[in-house]
């Protein structure tokens, strides 16, 4: 059963940036794109389980801080070595200045 979970205030995330959100023993990454849209993915890189929230957001790419693996955070697509496995994404909505993500 999927639930909408409040993750953070919308203005907690700078434009073109990412923050970490932990919930229920899991960790997620919440992104704010340069177009002021919000997205969510699993929080750990699929390569070496490093927190993506310490990485760099460039346009629609999140780059892992350890090995520079790149994902499209909007689709979760791995963009080449050293990441080969896609990142799981989650639906996001923004209401009353708060960011919610749907977690199953």
């Amino acid at each position, binding site marked *: 059963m999927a639930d909408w979970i409040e993750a953070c205030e919308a203005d907690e995330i700078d434009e073109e940036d990412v923050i970490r959100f932990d919930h229920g023993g899991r960790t997620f990454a919440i992104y704010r794109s340069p177009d002021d849209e919000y997205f969510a993915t699993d929080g750990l890189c699929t*390569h070496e389980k490093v927190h993506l929230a310490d990485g*760099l957001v*460039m346009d629609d790419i999140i*780059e892992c801080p*350890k*090995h520079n693996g*790149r994902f499209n955070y909007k689709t979760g697509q791995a963009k080449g*070595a*050293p990441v*080969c496995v896609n990142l799981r994404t989650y639906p996001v909505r923004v209401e009353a200045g708060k960011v919610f993500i749907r977690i199953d």
Partner: protein
Amino acid sequence: MTAARPKRDYSLVGESTRWAIETGLASAEWYHSEVSRKTMKELMQRSDGPAIRDTIIWIALILGSAAGAIWFWGTWWCVPFFFVYGVLYGSSSDSRWHECGHGTAFRTRWMNDVVYQIASFMLMRNPVQWRWSHARHHTDTIIVGRDAEIAVMRPPDLLKTALAFTGLLDFRYSLPRLFRQAFIGLDAEEKSYIPEMEWRKAVVAARWHVAIYVATVAAALWMWSFLPLMLIGMPRIYGSWHMVLTGLLQHIGLADNVTDHRLNTRTVYMNPISRWIYWNMNYHIEHHMFPMVPYHALPRLHELIKHDLPAPNPSMWHAYREVWPVLLKQLRYEDYFLARELPPTARPYREEFHNFTLPSAAE
């Protein structure tokens, strides 16, 4: 951490590998100096400008020195041109390979990829295999049995280390490996750090490199001249001395099996020419702690965190003078290493980050 440490076994599928995995030393959490997210974001910002400028200079110097070498071929005047060409081909390609492999040199991805492929070829490095070996080097820096890029193993082989400056040993190792990868495939160690889905790509890349070398030899035979080989392939021998001179200092003589780059990595101040050739990788602790920071921002990062790092060596000469007695001591007692002192402003070494070796380490 409780298991007895086996004698160092540098194979990537041996006893030390098993021990590193069992103790949690493999893929461990590493120490980081504190830098605010805001500052780190500024430091990590990518830009095409500095790398385009440096690459234009790099290509112009390569083509210019090659043209001079060809023009004066057959006379002693070609020597200084080959000297410059060799260092650009056999040494500066290493830093270009490295920085573009991280994807930090340029903001634009394809520019990183193009320079990475060219530099990999110059270095006789399989671009697929080495991307993965370097990822492992960053995950498990100088962890015995895990790190595929440990330059000087213990006890040190001083003759081999000295011969590294000639480029001969690495050449003798790199070229046959490309042929083996092209015609037989990857070996067990390579397969231990390259995912299966990349194996085929690695073989194809090796075949492309081999094809270019075969064409170069054919051209040399057709022209009945060494000139094609002096321009393609051989610079990996006569021009790699600067890569070895700077690269050896990254970790040599320091601790192994620790998870704090301040203990196993060295920052050395260097002259501007070497820094340009090396693309600022002399700030090596900084690079390992924060690999997302592009080469042109490393001096700024160094200024920000140097209070938390051991004092840098003021020169390469100083660093080698420091390393030499350590290597001699390691001949008799391989657990010996140079424990680097932290300044009073630094956060102390945390025992849980380096207690893998402390019980047997020398002072």
